[in-house]
């Protein structure tokens, strides 16, 4: 990256600007001086004034001569007045000052004296004697001589002053030309400095941009590395947390729930050991059957506990695809009837077909739990109705029984872990089934609800996101 040297650059450009301004100011001052000098040039008028006075004196001379020769048209009075006005003008402030500056004050005064003599001669006399050439001529001749001398001197003075002025103009012109050259050079210097500064700025900007890009890249690299590490750490931690939660939950359930069946098995075995001989084969067979049931219950308990613990530890994942609730329900009913040999299940499917976006295994687990609950908690002569339907953007499956129903205050707690309703007394069960079922429904973005009327029965409703009709069902279904 090139090093910027601001101080010398600013110094040079300041000097260039200073020189530019100085040259410009000097040139303007000179030009204004020349203009003012040309405008104030009053003395050019002087030669005209003096010449006109000479003309007036000659015309007076002519008029006097003609009058003497008897010409009637001549008007020496007018000519005298005009001559007087010409000399009065020369005597006025600016004109007298100019003549005095040229050393012509004494001829002017002498000319004015001659004029006074002429006027006195004319004004003091009357009639024909007023314009007698003999009396007037000496004064008039003197006056003409002096005016001639003044005109001469004024002409030379004007030429001198014109020459001097031209010299001044020439030197001013040369100075202005010099200034213009100075203006051009300093302007050129300024322009070069500007181009140089712009180039510097561009280079600096490019360097800055490159530096910024590099920094951004580095930051992004670091950040992505840290982010990857953090994500990996977070997911590892999550996994660890899930695993530990799984063990903690499973241990809690084992300690809470396994004691009872184990105690039942233990006491049954003790009784069989102690009183083996007193039991008939029938009685013994009955005891063994009960012990087997207890072991069966424990097996179910272990399975349920593992499922619940997996849910707690977030070890269960749903892989939703498109499934028909109709086919799931029909499949479950068939299995149930084959296993138990009962025909209490009735199904009814709404139109359009309830297609759900769900995990088939999890959904089967939920519905199997609901069906077995319905069969277990309702009288053996009452049917269990299973319906499926599409409601808005949900696929719904309802399992209704004709049992005793559930009291209102228990409905709210029905999905709590290990909660068992008052109607469940006397039935085996541990209070995990509905809790697991609702969890499984929720991890598929669905839900499980209950509505029940005491004395009339209960209705459990599974809601799942509906799948579109057009999509082909997944091959695994």
């Amino acid at each position, binding site marked *: 990256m090139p090093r910027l040297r601001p101080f010398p650059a600013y110094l040079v450009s300041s000097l260039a600007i200073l020189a530019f301004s100085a040259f410009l100011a000097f040139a303007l001052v000179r030009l204004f001086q020349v203009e003012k000098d040309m405008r104030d040039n*009053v003395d050019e*008028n002087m030669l005209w004034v003096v010449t*006109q006075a000479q003309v*007036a004196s000659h015309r007076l001379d002519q008029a006097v001569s003609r009058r003497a020769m008897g010409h009637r048209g001549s008007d020496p009075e*007018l000519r005298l*007045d*005009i001559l*007087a*006005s*010409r000399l*009065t*003008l020369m005597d*006025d*402030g*600016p*004109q007298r000052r100019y003549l005095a500056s040229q050393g012509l004050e004494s001829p002017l005064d002498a000319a004015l004296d001659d004029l006074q003599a002429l*006027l006195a001669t004319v004004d003091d006399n009357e009639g024909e004697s007023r314009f007698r050439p003999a009396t007037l001529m000496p004064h008039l001749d003197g006056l003409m001589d002096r005016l001639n001398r003044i005109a001469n001197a004024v002409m030379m003075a004007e030429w001198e002053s014109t020459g001097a002025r031209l010299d001044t103009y020439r030197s001013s012109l040369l100075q202005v030309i010099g200034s213009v050259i100075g203006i051009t050079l300093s302007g050129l210097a300024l322009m070069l400095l500007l181009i140089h500064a712009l180039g510097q700025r561009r280079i600096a900007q490019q360097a800055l941009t490159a530096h910024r890009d590099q920094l951004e890249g580095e930051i992004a690299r670091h950040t992505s590395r840290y982010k990857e590490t953090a994500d990996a750490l977070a997911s590892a931690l999550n996994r660890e947390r899930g695993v530990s939660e799984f063990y903690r939950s499973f241990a809690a359930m084992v300690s809470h729930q396994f004691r009872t069946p184990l105690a039942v098995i233990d006491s049954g075995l003790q009784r069989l050991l102690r009183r083996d001989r007193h039991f008939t084969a029938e009685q013994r067979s009955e005891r063994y059957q009960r012990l087997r049931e207890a072991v069966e219950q424990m097996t179910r308990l272990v399975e349920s506990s593992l499922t619940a613990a997996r849910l707690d530890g977030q070890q269960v994942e749903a892989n939703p695809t498109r499934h028909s609730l109709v086919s799931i329900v029909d499949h479950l009913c068939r299995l149930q009837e084959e296993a138990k040999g009962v025909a209490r299940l009735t199904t009814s499917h709404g139109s359009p077909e309830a297609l759900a976006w769900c995990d088939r295994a999890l959904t089967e687990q939920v519905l199997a739990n609901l069906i077995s609950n319905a069969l277990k908690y309702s009288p053996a002569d009452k049917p269990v109705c299973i319906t499926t339907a599409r409601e808005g953007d949900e696929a719904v499956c309802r399992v209704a029984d004709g049992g005793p129903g559930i009291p209102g205050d228990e409905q709210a707690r029905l999905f709590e872990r290990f909660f068992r309703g008052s109607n469940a007394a006397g039935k085996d069960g541990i209070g995990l089934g509905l809790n697991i079922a609702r969890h499984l429904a929720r991890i598929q973005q669905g839900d499980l609800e209950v509505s029940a009327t005491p004395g009339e029965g209960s209705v459990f409703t599974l809601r799942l996101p509906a799948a579109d009709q057009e999509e082909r069902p997944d091959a695994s279904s």
Partner: protein
Amino acid sequence: MLIRHCLVLATLLLSGPVLAQADAATLPAPEGAVKLVVSGQIAATNRGAEAHLDLDLLEPLPGHELTTSTSVTDGVNHFEGFLMRDLLERLGASGETAIALALNDYVVEIPLQDFYDYDVILATHMDGQRLTRRDKGPLWIVYPRDDHAELQDIRYDYRWVWQLHRLEIE
């Protein structure tokens, strides 16, 4: 109010030239010494096609005073006289230019517009003294030089005709 003003203005505009012509037609012959002869495009004449004006004919014009410096005198001078445009209107003059002639045979053309753009006077007095033929009288065309910067120019200075004795309106 506005309508009345307009009516008055219209009346003045219409009657102005009529009055001037009525006046112009009755320009009397001069009785004293003739100071100024005006010829050319004028409506009012009293000798042939010319207007010969003595002081009695000039002095009824509205007086006008002017204080200004000049290019040929020192300091500031006070002039009295009358406006050139009043004289031109009195004579019903129409045209573009006035050719001014002086007793000393000086001749200059002056655009008549000057007299309408500026209060140019025909001075009869300077600093309280009547201008005489032995100085710059009896009549001197004086521009209000100090009141207008553009008049401080040699191209206006030569229009200051003194010893004026003749105007030809073209």
